[in-house]
């Protein structure tokens, strides 16, 4: 966006119209993706609640085959990742990339709608298969083998235009770190996805190497898809709302390249002490800890960017969600380092802590940032403002408390379980103690998912009303607190837009 001189009104008008045109061009696919994603979010949290209850009360709701924990838990994770995570990510990426590259999406809109439609159909069939006897028991790839080519194709339908927009983009102010991250995500995910699926479904037997590839894939999707999209979106929205530039381009570039270099190496330390070649596990452990550096760098950059503007976190829903996401991010990095390093990893291995890490990465960090992005993007696409401050607050607080409880209880349960399994003085402990010790944490987890389900009901409702055009018709944004115009983050000063 050019910095127009204060006196040139037509330039300003043209710029506003151009951005509005970009918004209009991506409106259909983005809103379709986000709405479907929100439905899947609802489904995944309900499945998560059910799975959590079944983990300590296996007789709850009877003994039907599709209600066993072994099927409910993968269904929950797959719905969260592929149903909600990818659709929210693609929706946000599409809008961000179009805006960032300053280009309208000219062709391929219908193809995108069809692709989104098929994505949802495929995920529905996939989750159904998991529940009714087609579970592959490959982490994050539990959907049957026939789903992956469809999902890959649908993803490419979105990724290709984004990549070409990025290639053609012209930004006078130089590089924009958000686009780099989103572009990276567009390259990394198809590479990860096709490699993992070809190796695990097409190649002849791979034994323990297959298990290693599976673990590599899960870490890869977290670190090289969800993290880049979340960080890229945060790098866009924090300066946008605070009005301050990103504190350091050098830190931004360093963070990006460190993530790019390290992200592909980690994952196999999941099976430390196991049958995988020791050096593959050791490299995974090393890079898992090294990833603390880009986390630190990005965290510092975000912190320095928001310096002095923390009051806006109380006002702007977008900034509030993105800010909380940015706090969950270093915590996720620390948890990854704890489960990856050899000193602490053996304690957390094969415990609930792994689930806690998945949730903090996909929900605590990525989804919170995605929510913030959604609260920003949807008014611009639907032409109306969010209806109710109360609904936004409800969504925010129940999500934060819920995620916090899930993560904390999972990590602490992991510590407890890990101690039971590895402590020398408990070598002859009967299994009943292991089970009973973990029980209170599982109950807390179920309560937390109930809270999150509650918050998502209102989010879904709110989003559907907005998409139907039933939001508030107003030129003032829906803010979380009343402020006079001087500190309103969404009003510009002077003529700059």
């Amino acid at each position, binding site marked *: 966006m050019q910095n127009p001189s204060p006196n040139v009104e037509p330039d300003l008008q043209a710029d506003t119209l151009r951005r509005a045109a970009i918004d209009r061009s991506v409106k259909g696919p983005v809103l379709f993706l986000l709405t479907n994603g929100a439905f899947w979010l609802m489904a995944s949290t309900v499945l998560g609640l059910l799975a959590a209850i079944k983990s300590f009360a296996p007789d709850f709701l009877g003994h039907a085959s599709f209600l066993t924990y072994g099927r409910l838990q993968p269904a929950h994770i797959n719905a969260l990742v592929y149903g909600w995570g990818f659709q929210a990510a693609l929706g946000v990426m599409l809008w961000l990339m179009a805006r960032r590259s300053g280009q309208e999406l000219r062709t391929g809109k219908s193809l995108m709608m069809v692709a989104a439609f098929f994505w949802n159909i495929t995920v529905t069939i996939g989750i159904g298969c998991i529940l009714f006897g087609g579970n592959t028991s490959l982490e994050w790839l539990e959907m049957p083998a026939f789903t992956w080519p469809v999902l890959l194709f649908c993803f490419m339908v979105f990724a290709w235009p984004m990549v070409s927009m990025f290639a053609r983009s012209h930004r006078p102010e130089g590089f924009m770190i958000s686009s780099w991250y989103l572009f990276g995500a567009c390259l990394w995910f198809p590479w990860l996805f096709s490699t993992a699926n070809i190796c*695990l479904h097409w190649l002849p037997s791979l034994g323990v190497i297959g*298990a290693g590839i599976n673990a590599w894939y899960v870490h890869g999707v977290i670190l090289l898809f969800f993290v880049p999209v979340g960080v890229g979106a945060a790098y866009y929205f924090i300066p946008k709302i605070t009005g301050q530039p990103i504190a350091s381009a050098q830190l931004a570039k360093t963070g990006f390249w460190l993530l790019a270099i390290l992200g592909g190496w980690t994952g196999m330390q999941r099976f430390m002490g196991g049958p995988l070649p020791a050096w593959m596990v050791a490299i995974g452990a090393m890079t898992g800890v090294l990833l603390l550096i880009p986390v630190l760098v990005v965290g510092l950059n975000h912190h320095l960017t928001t310096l002095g503007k923390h009051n806006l976190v109380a006002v702007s829903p977008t900034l509030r969600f993105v800010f909380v996401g940015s706090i969950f991010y270093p915590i996720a990095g620390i948890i990854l380092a704890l489960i990856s390093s050899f000193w602490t990893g053996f304690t957390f291995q094969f415990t609930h802590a792994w689930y806690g890490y998945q949730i903090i990465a996909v929900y605590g960090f990525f989804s919170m940032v995605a929510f913030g992005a959604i609260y920003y993007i949807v008014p611009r696409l639907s032409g109306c403002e969010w209806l109710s401050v109360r609904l936004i607050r409800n969504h925010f607080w129940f999500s934060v408390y819920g995620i916090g409880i899930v993560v904390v209880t999972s990590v602490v349960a992991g510590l407890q379980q890990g101690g039971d399994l590895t402590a020398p003085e408990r070598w*002859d402990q009967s299994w009943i103690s292991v089970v009973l010790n973990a029980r209170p944490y599982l109950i807390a987890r179920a309560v937390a998912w109930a809270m999150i389900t509650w918050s998502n009901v209102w989010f879904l409702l709110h989003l559907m009303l907005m998409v139907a055009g039933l939001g508030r018709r107003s030129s003032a944004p829906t803010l979380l607190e009343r402020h006079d115009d001087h500190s309103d983050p969404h009003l510009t000063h002077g003529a700059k837009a």
Partner: protein
Amino acid sequence: MTDFRKLTLGIAASFGLPWLLLIVVPAFKYQHIKPIAYDKEADGMDGYYPQSNANVLGMQVYIREGCVQCHTQMIRPSQFSADGWHKGWGEDQSARPAEATRANTMRDYLSEDVALLGVSRVGPDLANAGYRLAAMDRSAIHAMLYAPHSVAMWSNMPSYAHLYTVRKAQGPKSDLALPLTGKFAPAKGYEVVPTPEAEQLVDYLLSLKKAAPLPAAALGNLATAAAAK
């Protein structure tokens, strides 16, 4: 101004390297991994390692039911865990094993398309469940799958009742009928019998034996390093 080409090359190179070294090359090398013959002199026994293969049909049932969510199949070295000393987790089923169950290696999983190492250890490790379950009656194993609570009231294991049929008892008690009592028993005149899937699953569980001794040749560079000493 972002140099698109440089950025793409940088991303491709930085991801391509681990992709090559961690995924592609090991996947190719694994195709050459084969069972190793025991050396009569060095190992004191005949035959091939691994000694037992997992029952493939039952493995499909295990995979379908998502057992990996709660059960692992991986014994870790005693330097880092108490896995090797747990009662019943190895070939030695005594309460206080004299020797630690050995950590599992790559060839223990040769018969599996993707090694079912497990997601978390909510329930006991099953790497050597074959030894543990061999002491039980087959119908008792079925009873454990049908109604885990009948074996342990505190268990969180789901009941796999859908792998069993409740049918009208035909005459005297069938050999296949599960020994269930109390509230777990079916209605009077009925019996619970396993379906073919349940039988395959039990066959699979009984085939889980990953504690065969390691031949010297399987130790890779450790063997050569030891020989060089």
